[in-house]
């Protein structure tokens, strides 16, 4: 079969149910055997501001979103033409994003001036069709309660254009409302009605379609990064998760919270992030695998806790930073990779901690899991640097390969030697790692303090002891650098030798991998250096790759090229080009390819990338 690739988009005011509609559409596609890549853009607002959800559907896994829309489902006026209620805006609605030949489905009751002749305008009387459905079911009096079913009708209408059987969506509805059969049936009916309405009027010879399905033997999972992380954490033996609500980390926390009845796990909503991290440190010291998840503004309150954990050699916590648009409160619900340098030196003084930045679902699983082993083994806090885009983007996956994960390793425990005060929690050892004990054990009482301390854990300001303790702590980082396998540190995609070497990290990986193919098709050989372990930094390995590179292009979702600075600090190698996107949105495939073409053409050293899509 020919490769195919369709982007479907739904837009509407926040709170109008577009998430549910888009996810239902995506689920229907997955049931039908297609692969999806889907994400939402929304404001930091509860109701009313414009939000939209892109679902890219294809015959295979796509690793980035596309800016092209083949079908747009509009729940309101603003989705079509943008918004005039704010004086400073560049946002012009989704109609301009539709590919020629594409279509827009919208409410027939809107007064719309079709502004483009090259797309199909499909007014659907959402309200009337819903009324009809309810009337048939004698549920007219519930019109208000079921208003959100207008969305179902709209989505169903779009299916007709794409020649996708309504059955898949109907099955999804039955599944979703399995505890409310009446609602299920109403929605199934709404699908039928919306579908029929559009099929009759708009579907003829529509140039884009979702090809006839070949449902897979085993339906793949449809999951987001936050789910991958949470499941991996549970698998890793997470005992205590603390959190304070914040976008976009809340979803991970809420997911774990919902599992408290099923798994032996304590999830605590704290009064702030300072409390969250310190509670996690306390839990780690008490023997728990402990974690907390937040984003930039929350992490800004956790930095003293990181120093605390590092100084007292707590076995953790594992801190997840789901990056969002900064600085400060910034763009709470938008995408950025702006916290790398912050996460690398997040407190006063020199201390050890690990920072790892997975780039896709399977790396999220590996790193979320392995971080707990590192925390226990090296007795230090670990930061997992993730971001909004990877957290909230839905992808299809056949297997998470949890069986391939290494065993749980809780590090070295001490044995009581019978003497009341024989135990040294901070014993000086060759590796720097001191066998640890856990409160509750007889004969292994220890002390700890955030002050500099002696092997027993009591305050010491002695000069020699100080040097030994600093060397011990920093030595553990060197040990981690030695022990962590290269495959977890970095990876080179594509040919060893190439005209262009792209360099990036985290969720931009998807966009970069997507364009590598395009470049190859254009005859440009390109490879991609993904840096994954940020601390201890694999300086030699990175330098080895970059020294071979002919022309380097840094690709980052921030304004200052933070990975580029980090590479410079450790290897002294600068980047030839930097493509930086900091408009609060992830790289769309076309944005990156256009920017690369521009690099190949004009070769500006720094380029701000954005097609200003809103």
């Amino acid at each position, binding site marked *: 079969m020919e490769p195919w690739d369709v982007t479907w988009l739904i837009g509407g005011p926040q709170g109008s149910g577009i998430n549910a509609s888009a996810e239902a559409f995506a689920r229907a596609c997955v049931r039908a055997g297609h692969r999806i890549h889907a994400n939402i853009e929304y404001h930091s607002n509860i109701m009313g501001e414009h939000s939209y959800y892109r679902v890219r559907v294809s015959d295979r896994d796509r690793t980035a979103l596309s800016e092209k829309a083949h079908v747009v489902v509009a729940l309101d006026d603003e989705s079509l033409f943008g918004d005039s209620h704010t004086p400073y805006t560049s946002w012009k609605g989704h109609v301009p994003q539709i590919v020629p030949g594409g279509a827009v489905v919208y409410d027939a009751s809107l007064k719309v001036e079709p502004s483009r002749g090259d797309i199909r305008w499909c007014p659907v009387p959402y309200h009337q069709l819903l009324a009809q459905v309810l009337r048939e079911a004698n549920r007219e009096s519930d019109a208000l309660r079921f208003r959100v079913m207008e969305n179902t009708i709209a989505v169903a209408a779009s299916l007709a254009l794409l020649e996708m059987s309504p059955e898949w969506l109907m099955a999804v509805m039955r599944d979703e409302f399995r505890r409310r059969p009446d609602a299920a049936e109403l929605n199934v009916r709404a699908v039928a009605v919306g579908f029929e309405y559009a099929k009759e009027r708009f579907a003829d010879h529509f140039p884009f379609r979702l090809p006839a399905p070949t449902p897979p033997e085993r339906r*793949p*999972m*449809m*999951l987001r990064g936050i*789910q991958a992380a949470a*499941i991996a954490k*549970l*698998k890793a*033996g*997470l*005992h*205590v998760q*603390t959190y304070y609500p914040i976008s976009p980390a809340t979803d991970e926390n809420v997911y774990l919270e919902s599992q*408290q*009845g*099923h*798994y*032996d*796990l*304590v999830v*605590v909503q*704290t*009064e*702030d992030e*300072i*409390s*969250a991290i*310190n*509670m996690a*440190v*306390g*839990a*780690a*010291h*008490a023997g*728990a695998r*402990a974690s907390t998840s937040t984003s930039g503004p929350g992490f800004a309150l956790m930095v*003293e806790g990181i120093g*605390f954990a590092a100084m*007292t050699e707590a076995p953790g916590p594992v801190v997840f930073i789901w990056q969002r648009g900064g600085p400060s409160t910034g763009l709470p619900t938008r995408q950025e990779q702006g916290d790398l340098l912050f996460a690398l030196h997040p407190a006063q003084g020199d201390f050890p901690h690990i920072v790892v930045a997975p780039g896709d679902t399977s790396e999220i699983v590996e790193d979320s899991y392995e971080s707990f082993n590192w925390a226990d083994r090296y007795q230090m806090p670990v930061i997992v640097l993730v971001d909004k885009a990877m957290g909230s983007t839905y992808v299809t996956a056949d297997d*998470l390969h*949890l069986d391939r994960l290494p065993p*749980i390793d809780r590090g070295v425990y001490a044995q009581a030697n019978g003497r009341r*005060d024989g135990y040294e929690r901070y014993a000086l050892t060759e590796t720097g790692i001191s066998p640890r004990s*856990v*409160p*509750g*054990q*007889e*004969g292994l*009482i*220890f*002390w*700890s*303090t*955030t*002050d500099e301390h002696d092997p027993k*854990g*009591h*305050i010491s300001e002695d000069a020699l002891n100080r040097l030994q303790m600093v060397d011990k702590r920093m030595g553990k980082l060197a040990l981690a650098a030695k022990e962590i396998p290269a495959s977890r540190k970095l990876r080179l995609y594509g040919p060893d030798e190439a005209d262009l070497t792209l360099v990036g990290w985290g969720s931009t990986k998807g966009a970069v991998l997507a364009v590598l193919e395009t470049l190859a098709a254009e005859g440009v050989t390109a490879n991609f250096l993904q840096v994954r372990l940020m601390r201890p930094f694999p300086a030699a390995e990175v330098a080895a790759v970059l020294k071979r590179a002919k022309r380097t292009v840094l690709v980052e979702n921030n304004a200052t090229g933070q990975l580029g600075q980090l590479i410079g600090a450790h290897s002294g190698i600068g980047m030839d080009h930097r493509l930086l996107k900091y408009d609060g949105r992830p790289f769309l495939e076309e944005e990156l390819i256009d920017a690369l073409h521009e690099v190949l053409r004009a070769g500006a050293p720094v380029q701000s990338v954005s097609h200003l899509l809103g």
Partner: protein
Amino acid sequence: MTTVSLTVRDYKTDVHNNWCPGCGDFGILSAIQMALASLQIPPHKTAVFSGIGCSGKTPHYVNAYGFHTLHGRVLPTATGAKLADPDLTVLAVGGDGDGYGIGAGYFVNAGRRNVDITYVVFDNGVYGLTKGQGSPTLRKGMRTKSMPAPAIQDGINPIALAVGCGYTFIARGYALDPKHLSGLLAEAIKHPGSSFVDVLQTCPTYNDQYTKEWYSTGPEGHSRVYRLEEIGYDGVVQDPSDEGEIIARKTRAVAKSYEWGDRIPVGVFYQVEAPTYEDGMAAVNPRLGSTPVVDLDVEHRDVTPLLEALR
């Protein structure tokens, strides 16, 4: 396992103590050790957490798992350890600056959380370790010898505050009466839920207002400090299901907490039995009610159902 009975000596360490001579902290330290001995809680089943300050050094002097944490963060840290391992007896100690200044937010929210820990505040009216600035309990107009001018901020009322936060055991002790204090601390430790004991502590180095002499000699010559039980005050809620009684006792505790100057009450201001946070956890997952989460087998979790739910 320890079978012989434990004495105060079992809770002592040989760590060099560097508090100033005559510091009230010594009295509190003894009281803690006496309370633990009186309850026969094995040292290795005890964890003492502290903030930063002179008072913060306490864990080093107690033979028990000791965590000298960050300034103002003792409550969250202690809470984390307790929730991970509810089998531990968890004490949190720290200064008044630590607890009511930088740590005030945690003081407030630990109250409403009602985790089974005991929080002891060393209330000396000053920031000891940073050389005697006024602390949040220092009243407006007061001036200790290290202050350039009298305080222009007022002092908070820890007991009244604790009532508003929801602590289920609220008491005040006096550092220079370690015996009485140890009794209070034993009660506090036994109490299931968040116990709070504000301890009037003398700081001979910086606080020349509330000195041993001041406390021990009121206008009529006898001690200003008296015990609530002496006047028949009983802070304990008899019927925890009686909202009216709870409010009445809370109100009385607040009223009593404002008594200061010639007569200063110590003792239990308020106590009520109420479900703890741990009870709440157990309601969600009964296994957590019987076994510390760190002791449950989490290494062989089957997450297949979660994966299946995503298909």
